[in-house]
């Protein structure tokens, strides 16, 4: 077991990182004065991990879409009782989520955190899948899928990803489909569990009113040592080109919504990918912040409203810069964004805008330290991205306007863009 204290050179905040003898990475942040505790027990296993093998396997296994999410639901059922019943005895709020590249089990509480930590570490290491409880869950998840199918924002995103990626599984829905989850059985769940819920592929992140020694004592007691299973996940080759540049669907919505995505190259090195993420964030903010020329022009011309925003969406094998919002004229937004990037390529990045955006990022990072849940989630996020807990905080100040210029010039080109639109049905 190794232990280190990691301190941010920017904020001065520290956390403890332990590489536990069980194989688990543990991140602890004691936050004085706070009452609550937020903990995540997570694995690098999400909807994109559809093809994999371990050192014990000769062949790759391909699994049905939505199985990581299905597994997350099923872990909440122990052999003797449901996990929520255990949390009900302490008053904690237990939950979980599955995304493209991770599954995390969470609790938040203000009392009894040691009991809650025991519940969390215990149930995630104790799968119980049967034919009956798998069949029961198919009805519940089927309804969850129907619910998300009615969510236009969700459809907008997946339409864009389908139009952008030819092969990468980021294009498939996290929960799968009613048909794909019908293929899931208990054996397949155990196979995925034993592959991805190996502690060498997992981390615990806990922040708030906690004591490092108490946390580590519980980990020593409950974590079951794991041999590294030599997990290998693979993704099909993905061309640089997008599938198509525009995708539109009609749904019963009140306003037309859009996402304009730029497909970018990914980096194999995790720190390079993380730095690229920061550079891309600044590049997108240059034109999407509410003070930018583009924003001012489009809002004054009634083309966008205050929902216009940008984000960077990236993971293993995918990297997209997204502009989104409500607009009756999404093609005009696309044209205006492309023109704005073209101007930057011609004239360079405005140093004053760049300086202000760095101030915004700095201020936002300071604010984050006010929030127990955000601190714990951020440590988990960085673990999943295979970077240090303060890597992004400490790296952003080194980014130059030249980095941003080069990113815009090489990555944000119109031929790599996809405009996804959800229009009002009947228009």
């Amino acid at each position, binding site marked *: 077991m190794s232990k280190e204290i990691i301190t941010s050179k920017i904020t001065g905040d520290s956390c403890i990182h332990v590489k536990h003898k069980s194989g688990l990475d543990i991140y602890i942040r004691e*936050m*004085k*004065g*706070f*009452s*609550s505790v937020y903990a995540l027990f997570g694995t690098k296993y999400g909807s994109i991990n559809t093809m994999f093998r371990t050192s014990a396997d000769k062949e790759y296994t391909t699994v049905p879409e939505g199985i990581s999410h299905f597994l997350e639901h099923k872990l909440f059922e122990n052999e003797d009782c*449901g996990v*929520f019943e255990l*949390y*009900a*005895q*302490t*008053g*904690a*709020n237990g939950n979980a989520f599955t995304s493209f590249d991770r599954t995390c089990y969470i609790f*938040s*509480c*203000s*009392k*009894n955190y040691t009991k809650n930590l025991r519940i969390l570490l215990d149930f995630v290491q104790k799968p119980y899948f049967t034919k009956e409880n798998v069949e*029961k*869950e198919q*009805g*519940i998840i089927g*309804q969850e899928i*129907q*619910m998300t*199918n*009615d*969510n*236009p*924002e969700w459809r907008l995103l997946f339409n864009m990803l389908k139009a952008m990626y030819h092969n990468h599984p980021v294009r498939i829905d996290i929960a799968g489909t009613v048909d794909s989850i019908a293929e899931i059985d208990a054996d397949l769940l155990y196979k995925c569990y034993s592959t991805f819920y190996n502690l060498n592929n997992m981390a615990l992140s806990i922040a708030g009113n906690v004591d490092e020694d108490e946390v580590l004592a519980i980990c020593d007691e409950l974590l079951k040592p794991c041999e590294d299973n030599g997990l290998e996940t693979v993704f099909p080759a993905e061309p640089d080109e997008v599938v198509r540049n525009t995708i539109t669907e009609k749904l*019963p*919505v*009140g*306003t037309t*919504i859009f996402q304009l995505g730029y497909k970018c190259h990914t980096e194999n090195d995790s720190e390079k990918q993380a730095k690229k993420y920061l550079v891309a964030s600044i590049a997108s903010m240059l034109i999407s*912040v*509410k*003070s930018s020329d583009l*924003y*001012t022009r489009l*809002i*004054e011309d*009634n083309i966008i*409203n*205050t929902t216009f925003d940008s984000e960077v969406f990236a993971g293993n094998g995918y990297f997209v810069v997204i502009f989104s919002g*409500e607009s009756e004229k999404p093609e005009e937004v696309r044209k205006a964004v492309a023109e704005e990037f073209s101007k930057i390529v011609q004239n360079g990045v405005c140093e004053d805008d760049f300086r*202000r*955006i760095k*101030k*915004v*990022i*700095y*201020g*936002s990072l*300071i*604010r984050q*330290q*006010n929030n127990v849940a955000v601190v714990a989630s951020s440590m988990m996020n960085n673990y999943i991205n295979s970077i240090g807990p303060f890597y992004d905080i400490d790296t952003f100040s080194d980014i130059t306007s030249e980095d941003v210029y080069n990113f815009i010039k090489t990555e944000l080109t119109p031929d790599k863009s996809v405009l996804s639109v959800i229009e009002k049905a009947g228009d």
Partner: protein
Amino acid sequence: MNYKREVIGDNIGFSTIIDEKFNTCSLSVKFITELDSGYTAENEMLSGMLSMSNGKIKSFSEMNKTMQELYAASISGRTNTVGYTQVITFSASWICNRFALENENITESMLEIVHDCIFSPNTENSAFDSKNFKICQKCLIDDINSILNDKREYAIMQAKKTAFKGEPIENSFIEIEDAEKVTPESVFKAYEHLLETSQIEIFYVAPEENTAVSEMFRKGFSEITRNSRQYTIYSNSPIKAKPEKVTEELPVNQSKMILLLKSDSDDSYAMNMLSIILGGTPVSKLFMNVREKLSLCYYCSCRYIKNNVILIESGVDKENIQKAYDEIFNQIEEIRNGNISEEEMQAVIKAIDDSLSGVGDTPVQYVNWYFDRFCAGEIITPHQYFDKFCSVTKESIIDTAKSLKPDTSYYLINKEISE
């Protein structure tokens, strides 16, 4: 933590919450007004108008640039309905001066901006600036239209429209035509009305005292002729003599069922606990039976809407609506028959205890807590509040369940299936 509330003017409360763990300063100014003032649509826009510019910083773009220079400081506005009143909130937040990289006095700059936004807004000839007005009006119209994008929220809104028909809350559902009628002049009149008549509660949350904040507001409001009114924020919603059922069809994959039940009970603590036992947690009766046992839905939950209303919602296939409906009422009947275990009572108490113990871990939580208590007419600590829940008996929960009467049921049905 150190909390104190002082009265700084006619019906104006100023609460200071000092907690040294925070690295930010937050201000929240809440104007409480009636829902039938004739200015509900104007007030919706006012919260945005006040925060996007002021008499000195005239444009939205310039205001945002200023916020960026102050390390992502923020000012924002929000209007919502609390009981029988409309609350217009103006908020500001910024990092403490000690984090400034170039020794800027962030707090001083922000107080000046906040002062100008509230007391010296961007107006001319008794009208708000027309350029900013157009942006705000479009946003309001788009907001109204976009409610349909979220089917769950849309269904709840439609159910509430029926449940609160004929009551002041009805005015909170602003229609497109209302938003289109608003003018820069009418927003200005609403602004004057608000400053003159509303009840005002101000909250300042920071790591250290700063008397300049309360002084700024004391002085600002002393220059305004106040003729404030005292509002009754919560009162019971009348129970319909005959329950009303509304069905709407849309091309959706999943149907939505919203049930509103009303009680003649005044025991808000028992009502709250009843709603949690019935459908407020993942071990509640609705979750365990409608979802887990019958696999009918992904969500089936219940929440307490002050003062005498509980709302039950579920997303189900059309063909399972009746089954889910029957099971929901079966579970209510179970409670009426006294089927509440000691474990269920304890689970609710523990969940409330845990939740209340965390009040104050963010500045927003502090503001929400103290404002919520102010609206309830009972400024007490989380600990005192918790004691009130502990004194609720199983019998009072059963009695409250017996007093529940179906008032409104709303169904959003898959169009293709129903045809």
